[in-house]
């Protein structure tokens, strides 16, 4: 049966009032419900299953496309949809008769409970695998929900290490977790600092209050003193925080050599602007997981404020032709090629590769295929894929820096496109 989308069936009562969304293509949830409802109805009436082999393989995409992290959620969704488009254009899942992938779209609204409910709905609707859920707190909920039915779940972003340390056999993550990222961030910061004769000794950490910011800050606070940095103060803030003057004032009073933010985008924009307004000067701003040096949008909108800022974050391999092709494809769609886009793209592509190798929709077979995967088409600065308890040990972050209005990779050397400039030149 080739699934078409029957029109005219009203979407059922939803837990979510916000059913429209800011996306340019793909399905919205109403269409999804109409489609799945329609399919269920057709099955009930005993429609003949023609061409069974080409039935689409349903992949559930659960992202926070509304709510306070809607921008990131939408970027994730677009990245995932790009992967589905590429895979279908290349002939779908060949081992299952060229079955195309079909996206089931869900909105977690930035809330873990709703993310779990959306995941349950998709499993119910016949999703073969789930790709979710951007924020760590939401991903903890979606993975657990999918685990109840052993449904394969690939984590797109969610950096909390708790996600892969609960023994869930259905949960896989290609990207690095914040433990690895924090270690890497501290090691490289130390290396950059030493190379410049150690101008930075004191550090202040500014982080958002959810699992991602708090967890990252905690790890940094623990690791930085080992490398001779003194953490003067750690400031936690709410989402949204409407005004950062207070925080800027505290930074100004404490005069740290380095400022390390771990925040979501909106708050980062306000903090960066306020630091300039309040004339706060430091030897460097070094963001961990999110910051100017991983945001094309920020660099474009505030080129001066962004200059010399360094990040330790997910990034694509700037030397990979495939990465540059995807980047161009995203930009042709009017998207910034942010980490959400390529991590979600890879999550879907990784899942699709496992389904291809499993050659069936059997959930256990797909989970096994992921657990033993050595997939290498990620176009990321990663080593070989090797899953240990669902975590890809080959995944790693890189260091980037904004130099002359461009985002350059400065570490590790084998992927670098520029040398670090540190400390920030005066004037």
């Amino acid at each position, binding site marked *: 049966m080739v699934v078409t989308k029957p029109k005219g069936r009203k979407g059922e009562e939803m837990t979510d009032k*916000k059913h429209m969304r*800011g996306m340019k293509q793909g399905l919205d949830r109403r269409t999804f419900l109409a489609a799945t409802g329609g399919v269920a109805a057709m099955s009930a009436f005993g429609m003949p299953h023609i061409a069974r082999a080409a039935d689409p393989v349903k992949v559930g995409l659960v992202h926070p496309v509304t709510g306070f992290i809607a*921008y990131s959620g939408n970027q994730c969704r677009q990245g995932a949809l790009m992967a589905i488009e590429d895979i279908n254009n290349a002939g779908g899942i060949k081992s299952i008769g060229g079955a195309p992938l079909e996206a089931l779209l869900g909105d977690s609204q930035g809330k873990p409970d709703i993310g779990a409910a959306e995941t349950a709905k998709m499993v119910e609707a016949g999703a073969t695998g789930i790709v979710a859920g951007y924020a760590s707190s939401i991903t903890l909920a979606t993975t657990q929900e999918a685990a109840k039915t052993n449904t394969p779940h690939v984590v797109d972003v969610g950096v909390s290490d708790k996600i892969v340390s609960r023994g869930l056999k259905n949960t896989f993550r290609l990207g690095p977790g914040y433990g690895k990222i924090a270690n890497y961030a501290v090691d490289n910061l130390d290396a950059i600092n030493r190379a410049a004769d150690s101008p930075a000794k004191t550090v202040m950490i500014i982080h958002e209050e959810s699992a991602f910011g708090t967890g990252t800050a905690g790890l940094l606070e623990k690791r930085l003193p080992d490398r001779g940095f003194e953490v003067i103060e750690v400031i936690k*803030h*709410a989402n949204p925080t409407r005004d950062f003057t207070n925080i800027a004032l*505290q930074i100004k009073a404490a005069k740290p050599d380095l400022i390390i933010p771990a925040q979501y985008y*909106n708050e980062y924009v306000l903090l960066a602007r306020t630091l300039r*307004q309040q004339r706060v000067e430091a030897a460097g701003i070094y963001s961990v997981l999110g910051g100017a040096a991983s945001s094309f949008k920020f660099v474009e909108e505030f080129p001066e404020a962004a200059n010399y800022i360094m990040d330790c974050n997910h990034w694509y391999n700037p030397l990979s032709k495939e990465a540059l092709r995807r980047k161009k494809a995203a930009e042709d769609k009017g998207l910034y090629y942010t980490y959400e886009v390529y991590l979600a793209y890879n999550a879907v592509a990784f899942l699709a590769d496992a389904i291809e190798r499993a050659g069936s929709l059997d959930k256990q077979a797909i989970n096994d295929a992921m657990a033993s995967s050595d997939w290498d088409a990620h176009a990321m600065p990663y080593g070989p894929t090797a899953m240990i308890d669902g975590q890809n040990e080959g995944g790693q972050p890189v260091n980037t820096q904004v130099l002359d209005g461009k985002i350059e990779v400065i570490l590790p050397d084998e992927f670098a496109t520029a040398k670090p400039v540190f400390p920030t030149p005066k004037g």
Partner: protein
Amino acid sequence: MINFSILLPSILNGLTTGALYALVALGLTLIYGVLHIINFAHGALLMVAMYLVYFLYKLFGLDPYLALLVVPAAMFVIGYVLQRTIIGNASHGRDENILLVTLGLSIVIENLALFFFASDTQVVDTPYAFDVVELFGAFLPVPKVIAFVGALLTALALWLLMGWTDLGRAIRALARERKGARLVGINVDHIFAMSFGIGIGVLGIAACLLLPTYYVYPQVGHGFVLIAFTIVVLGGMGSFIGALLGGFIIGVVEAVGGLVLGESLGQIGIFVIFILVLLFRPQGLLGHRA
């Protein structure tokens, strides 16, 4: 632990932030405080006004402060038409209906914004965005100082309007005794819509003064609407000077609370004050006992 060297800058900053809150609350105190319309769409309409400012800047290069000539008037018209066509008709004069209608409106408006404008955070980058005024060693961003003055002038204008014009008298008459107002020849539907329009028009002013220091995205109103309700109750329902004062208090409490309790917990102070006011002075600081 309080660092005293930054206490004064923090308080001054709290006052300017409070002025922005007051601007959002001024329109609400007219709609909610005087007319008793619980306008849940206030945040969504603030977002609409902010997008208007943003697009005027983006498409025509119009400075947010020049947009003051256009956006408040446009928002007034939107408010007037909304009240005349949707809120007034759908509520059938019952408060609980109004609550649901405005809540529904806010959902529709926000999702339309999400659909048409996407969820990207948008900012207006003006040449003066990073300019500051130095006052007692504190750097006050110029756009916030302008917003502070703007809030004072807006409160004054509303106070004069309510106290000294026929329209103001009609609005007050309507708030106190609807039937009586109709009996003496006041066009109740028109005056209702005028008040709603003015309240929403003030949001237009707020948007123009807010955007140079803030950003806009479809849910931006959420962060302001609860604060605005708090300010209205704190200042006294329907009191413009009360709203102004309430805004300043909330701004300062938030700033100092952030210093004392930590940024994450600092906002608690706002709601502690809110509860205390409800317990001990339910009519608000400058409100009259019903």
